Structure formats: structure tokens, C-alpha cells
């Protein structure tokens, strides 16, 4: 397949369907291009001017034909739309039970950190047949992680976390590229995703073990940045809300709105604590904007996530409507609703 079709290797659970949709649109568009070209060429030859004085009979047009050639294309493009939208939903819905990798884009390199601590630059090792979710941000300009073999692409935007996921189906080494123009060395901001058999991957992980995991690094930052004084030595809460079990839960705010505590919310609460105050707590937390790098922030977020067993995709806590202020700050991790962090 790779040898003769002008498409990149197809190596993820979704890439085959993207190709199928691509071929479907090709089929329809090539058919119409040939049809229109054939009709135009036929008319141009058949009705060429044979006599310099000839004047053809005027034809006014036909509402019936106009309707026909508006409605048929509309019906066809609706099939493109529906299939494309369904697949897009699958591409961008955050994966469940995925291996999480933190990604920070910089001009002009990619830094990856695995949940188990391994750090990589411009290379990403992942196991085959496992979902891998990239949680991405950038310290400067917009970048984009594009892996042609997996048919995925997502911008990496300053000021927030974006995610994308894939499940590789074939071991191998695949190119990835930065696909959003980011300055001088944009075309050098590329690397390889190395997909390995599970045992090989375990070997790779243990060969690179001994590095502090992001959660442990986050715990150290939690202490050194003084978070303990308000959120408690064991994140049990105090003058600030408890952080134990907060990730993935639904948090009630002081305006009675509620938000799901996903990575984006945790990030915002560190950089701009006043934006969404938990009900019952005053606006006393200082902003850590500029005090903490994107990588450190990801580690703090990883630490807070490690305090919670639930994931936002699977379970989100929903405090009882009668929750007292302090209960609102410490939601029960057992209540369930479905919700997506996007």
C-alpha cells in the first residue's frame, strides 16, 4: 500500500477511516470533475462556430434544472459533512484510560514527559495498541503536533492545554511535524514517534527510569512554592480549598455556577486564582503567573491529578445542591455525571 499510493503510512486506529473518507470524497469529486469536463469539451466541439454570422437560438433557463443541480450536490455534501463530523468527534473526544504524556512546545523543540518521569526531546516512545493522550501547551508561540501516519493534528496554544490522542496499530518510527508556523526554525521542529511492542516499551521505560515523575516533582513544587500553608500539608485544605480528590470532580463556584476540575481549570486556578473562586473561599490566593514555567505548571497539575483516583471522562463529582460552603470545596468523588472537559 505504502509503495504505490501517494498517502502516508496508516498506523493508527483512526487513520484507516480517515483514508476511507478521503477516497470517498475523491471518488465523488473526480466523477464530477470528469463529468463537467466531458460535457464542456463535448459542447465546445459540437457547437463550435461554423459560420461567422450564425446566431444561436436563446435558451432562457430552467427552474427545474436549477433545483435539480442545487439539491443533488447539497445531498451529496451532507454525506461528506456527516461522516466527517462523526469521525472528528472521535478524533477530538478525549481518550479514556490513556497513557498521558505532557508536551511542551518551545521555539524550536518539543519536550515530552511521561507520567513515569521519563523525559524526551523531539522523540516520543509509546507502546503499540494503547491509547496515548498528549496534554500540550507552549511557552511562547502557537505550535502544532501533526503525526501524518496517525492522521492527527492539533494546535498547541499558549495559555491553555489542548489535547490529542492516538492509538498506534503498528510498531515503527513515524515522522511528526510542527504544523503551525512558529518562526525561524519552524521546519526544523520535527521528530519521531517510536511505536514499540509492549515488552520493548517496558524495557525502554525501565532503561530510562530513575527520573522524578511529574507528580513527584509537582509535590516538591507544592512545598517549595508554599502551597502547603493554605491547601494543607496533605492537600486536605485549610484557608484554601482541599485538593484531595478535586481533579475530575465538579466544583461549585461562589457564583453558584459549577465547573469540572480538569487540567485547564487547575491551570487557570494557579495562574489566575480569582477567575473561578470556589464557593466559600475568599480571593486571597496570589497569582503564580510568571513565577512558574509551563513545565513546572504541568508538574503541579500532575501532582493534583495524582491526588484523585477518578478521571473527568469516567466520573465527575456532583455535590449535593444543599452543600455547605466547606462541602462545596471538598466535593465527593463518588457522584457521577458524564461530561467532557472540552
Amino acid at each position, binding site marked *: 500500500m505504502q509503495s504505490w499510493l501517494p498517502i502516508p503510512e496508516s498506523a493508527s486506529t483512526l487513520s484507516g477511516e480517515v483514508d476511507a473518507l478521503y477516497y470517498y470524497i475523491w471518488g465523488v469529486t473526480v466523477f464530477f470533475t470528469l463529468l463537467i469536463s466531458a460535457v464542456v469539451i463535448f459542447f465546445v466541439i459540437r457547437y463550435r462556430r461554423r459560420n461567422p454570422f450564425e446566431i444561436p437560438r436563446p*435558451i432562457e433557463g430552467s427552474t427545474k434544472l436549477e433545483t435539480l443541480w442545487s439539491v443533488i450536490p447539497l445531498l451529496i455534501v451532507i454525506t461528506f459533512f456527516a461522516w466527517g463530523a462523526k469521525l472528528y468527534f472521535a478524533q477530538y473526544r478525549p481518550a479514556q484510560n490513556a497513557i498521558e504524556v505532557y508536551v511542551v512546545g518551545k521555539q524550536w523543540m518539543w519536550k515530552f514527559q511521561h507520567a513515569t518521569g521519563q523525559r524526551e526531546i523531539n522523540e516520543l516512545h509509546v507502546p503499540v495498541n494503547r491509547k496515548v493522550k498528549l496534554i500540550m501547551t507552549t511557552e511562547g508561540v502557537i505550535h502544532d503536533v501533526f503525526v501524518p501516519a496517525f*492522521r492527527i493534528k492539533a494546535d498547541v496554544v499558549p495559555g491553555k492545554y489542548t489535547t490529542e490522542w492516538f492509538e498506534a496499530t503498528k510498531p515503527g518510527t513515524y515522522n511528526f511535524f510542527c504544523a503551525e508556523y512558529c518562526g525561524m526554525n519552524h521546519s526544523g521542529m520535527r521528530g519521531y514517534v517510536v511505536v514499540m511492542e509492549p515488552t520493548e516499551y517496558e524495557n525502554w521505560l525501565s532503561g530510562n527510569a530513575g527520573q522524578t515523575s511529574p507528580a513527584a516533582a509537582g509535590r516538591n513544587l507544592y512545598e517549595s512554592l508554599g502551597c502547603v500553608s493554605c491547601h494543607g500539608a496533605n492537600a486536605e485544605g485549610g484557608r484554601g480549598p482541599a485538593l484531595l480528590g478535586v481533579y475530575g470532580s465538579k466544583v461549585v463556584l461562589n457564583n453558584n455556577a459549577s465547573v469540572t476540575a480538569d487540567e485547564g481549570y487547575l491551570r487557570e486556578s494557579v495562574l489566575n486564582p480569582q477567575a473561578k473562586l470556589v464557593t466559600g473561599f475568599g480571593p486571597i490566593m496570589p497569582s503564580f503567573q510568571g513565577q512558574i514555567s509551563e513545565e513546572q505548571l504541568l508538574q503541579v497539575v500532575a501532582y493534583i491529578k495524582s491526588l484523585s483516583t477518578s478521571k473527568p471522562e469516567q466520573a465527575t463529582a456532583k455535590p449535593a445542591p444543599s452543600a455547605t460552603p466547606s462541602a462545596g470545596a471538598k466535593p465527593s468523588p463518588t457522584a457521577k455525571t458524564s461530561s467532557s472537559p472540552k
Partner: protein
Amino acid sequence: MEEFVIPKQPGSNYLNAEYGLKSWLLTKDHKRIALLYLGAITFFFFIGSLYAMMIRLELLTPQGDLMQSSTYNKTFTQHGIVMVFFFLIPAIPATLGNFLIPMMIGAKDLAFPRINLLSWYIYMAGGIITIYALLAGGVDTGWTFYVPYSTTFSNSYVIATGVGIFINGFSSILTGLNFIVTIHTMRAPGMTWFRMPLFVWSHYATSLIMILGTPVVAITILLVALERLAHIGIFDPAAGGDPVLFQHLFWFYSHPAVYIMVLPAMGVVSELIANFSRKNIFGYKFVAFSSLAIAVLGFLVWGHHLFVASQSVYAGMIFSFLSFTVAIPSAVKVFNWTATLHKASISYDTPMLYGLGFIGLFTIGGLTGMFLATLAVDVHVSDTYFVVAHFHYIMVGGTLLAYLGGLRYWWPKISGRMYPEGWGRFSALVVFVGFNLTFAPQFLLGYMGMPRRYHTYPVELVSWQVLHVLSTAGASILGVGLMIPLIYLVWSMRYGRIAEANPWHLPGLEWQTPSPPPTENFLTTPIVTHEAYEFAPPEHKEVVGKFERQQPAES
């Protein structure tokens, strides 16, 4: 109209009415202003083409061997800025539109001749400032000026370029305003809305977009400059801003801007198809209203540029659906042009070759847009060469071909001379072949994963290099195809055969007056008694369908 007396040797026309530089630089004649634009636009097209050739040469090899990355980045940025803002947007409206709209509706000039001249000076001021920015050191943000790269990280002449584009925008707005007022108030007696040539309809729709859209890009550029100078924080997340907001604002104008470029081209093609097949346009009203539908729907699809830019999944779905709906009026036009050819009398003159080429290339450009409107496929091909190929099929295959065809069609009227037909047909063919060879391989490159704006690409991907070599070879052919008309059109101004008033024997008002026209366009105000594209006068219906006719309208 048939009783018009057309002097064989007009004593004075708009070209020889006055002489001297001052008579051109202070002219209020829409025809002379159109020629001022023609000269300036040709100059900018030449600059933009030089950048294009530099890009194509650099990509012959995977390594960066011709220039450094920073130079390459400036090259594609400046190619985009010069071509989009200083060639494609004004190309057809400011030259052919300016020259022909008053003539087609039987008016002496545009409604506001001084504003028309002012818009040329504004265009020149914007252009000179932009050229200054390019010469002083250039700009490397991409023509899209995405933040925060353009506001915080780029060390190039962002503000100077922005000022040039900002100023240039006012020339668009004034031209659009002038056209709208002219079309509403200056039509000759009997020139009802549905007797107007479709060229005028499409310029009406274009003018609406110019007036409604251009202020938004002006505001956006202003915000970029304020952010860069004063750090107001609107796009900076650290200050509570949002970099994606910029993309929404930018594309709110820049997607409709695509229709500013292509709607006038569609108007030209309607004229070419009808006149060179001696048939009224099939479904005239559908073609006219599809221009307005495109102008309206074009404002609702900007979000399809943000499918991978962290926009909400549901917003993506809505924008995807709306993007498909805007395809329908474009398809309607293609079908109606095709149907017009049915039982027609088709000549193979150069303008018609461009018109037919436009139908083919615009169809490919439009249909490849379907891939990009389809969410899941766009995720893969967004920001790759697939997108580059798609919009070049629309911009070059569409707008440039229509512009070249239109220039050839109205050349006898504009210059009073005929161009050499043999060279015309030959260069049209060269352009068509060169264009396809340049951009067709880029569709494949894009799906294979080659990102756009890449100075270098992996050496091990041999198939990528093969496609780039084909593309560069095509660009060289295209370059030759574009040089030939430049030479023979200039040549024909002095040595071409003297053109008759109506060399193509057509019923349009612009042909019922001498070539080149007198300053006031018509010797007497025309009174319109029939529809557009009526090739046989109503009192001579009996000749229709027969292969004879006493005389062409005049000879």
C-alpha cells in the same frame, strides 16, 4: 441602440484627449484610473512572482541550500502579502471593474470620480509603505500575522507592513462604495437591474463584501499593532487575552476576502462564456443571485480555518456545515456556464480559452475545498500543501485566469489595438499546462503530510522531493506563459492592428462606442431596450437560429 452613429475615425478618445504626466496623475476619468491601477498591479504581480520563483527554487532540494530559514520565511510571507493585498484583491475590480462598470451600464463615469482617484492614491500609499517595509528588512509572520508570533516574537517589520495593509484597505472600501452608488444611481435609461451584465452583478456583490469585511481586518491589524507597541493584552493569555480570538477576527475578513478575489472573476467568466458563444447566460437570475448568496454565506464560514486551532468541537461542526452550503451557489454557476454552451456558437478566441480553462480549474479548486470542509479530513490536511494547492487553484486558476482572459477580451476597447491572436492562444495553453503541473502535485504532497511554510523537509522522503521537482518545473512553464502576454500586450499598444469599435460583434453597451472610447464614454446617452446578451435585435428575431445575418452590428 442600433441607430447609434459610430464615427469611423473618432477625433478624440480618452487616451489622446490630454497629454502629459499631470493629465494622468490628476485624471478623474475612470478609464485612466483603471490604467493607473493596471500599471501598479502589474508591478506588484511581478514582485510577488519573483518571491514565488524563489520559493519554488528553494524547495527543489530537501535541504535549505539557496537561502537561510529566516530569508525563506520572509519570502513566503511577502509573496502572500503582495499577491493577496496588492494583486488579487484589487486585480479585477480596480482595473476591469473600474474601466467597464460605467460603460456597461451606460454611464459617463463612476458616481464619485475624485474618490476613485483618491482610492488609487491610497492604494499606492499603502503599496509604497509595504514595499518600504520589505526593503527595510522584510516581515516573517506569514501573511496571516498569527499572534503571539506577530505581536511578541517576530523581530521583523510587522508594524510597517501592517500600516501598509491598513491604508490599502481604505482603497478597497472606497472602490466598493463607489461601485455600489454607481450601480444604484447611474444606470442608463432602460438599464434595469435584470438587464445588467452579470459582470456588474458580481461586482455589486464584491463591493458589499469590501464595505462590510475590510473594516474588520483594519481593526484586527490595528489591534496587532497596539499589542506589539503598547501590550494592551487583548491577545495575550498572561493578561487575560486570547490568541485564538485573533484568528477569529482575521478570518472573519480574510475568508470573505477570498470571495472579493473570486466573485469578480466569476463575473468576467460569465461575460466570456456568454459573448464568445453568442448565447444569453442560462439561468441569468440564478447566476446573479448566486453571487449575492456567496457574498452573504461567505461571512458565516470563517471558523473552518480553525478546525485544529482548539475551537470547540461543536463550533467546528456548525462551520463545517455552513462551508458546504457556500459550495452550492458556486456549483450552480459552473452548471449554468456549462448549460450556456449547449446549442451555442462557440468561438476559440483567446479570451474564451481562458474562460473555459477557468471552468476546469475553478471546478477542481472548488471540489478540493470539499476535502477541507470535511472535518476529519481537514484535521489531516490542514496547514499542509493540500491547502496551498487548493487555494492556488482558486486564486491563480480562478482569479488570475479570469483576469488574463478579461484583459484580452477588453484589450481592443482599452487600448484601441488588437493583440496577436496566435500568441494569445499559445500563451493561454502554456499557462494552463504550467499551472496544473505546478499545483496538482501539491495536493499529493499535502496528503502525504508535507506541512506548508517549511523551508526544509526530511531527506529520506524521496517521493516528496519528486513532487517538489515537478511543481518547480511547472512553475517555470507558468512563468514563461505569463511573460509572453506581458511582451505581446506591450508590443500591441504600438504595433497591434487598429481595433474596430466592436471587433467581436457583441451587443454589450461597452462595444457600442468607439475603441478607445471618448472621455465621456458615449457620444449620446444610450437608451437600453433589451436584455443583456441579446445577440439578435428584437426586430430581427427571424435571423435567430439561422446561419445568416445581414450584417454584424457594425464592422
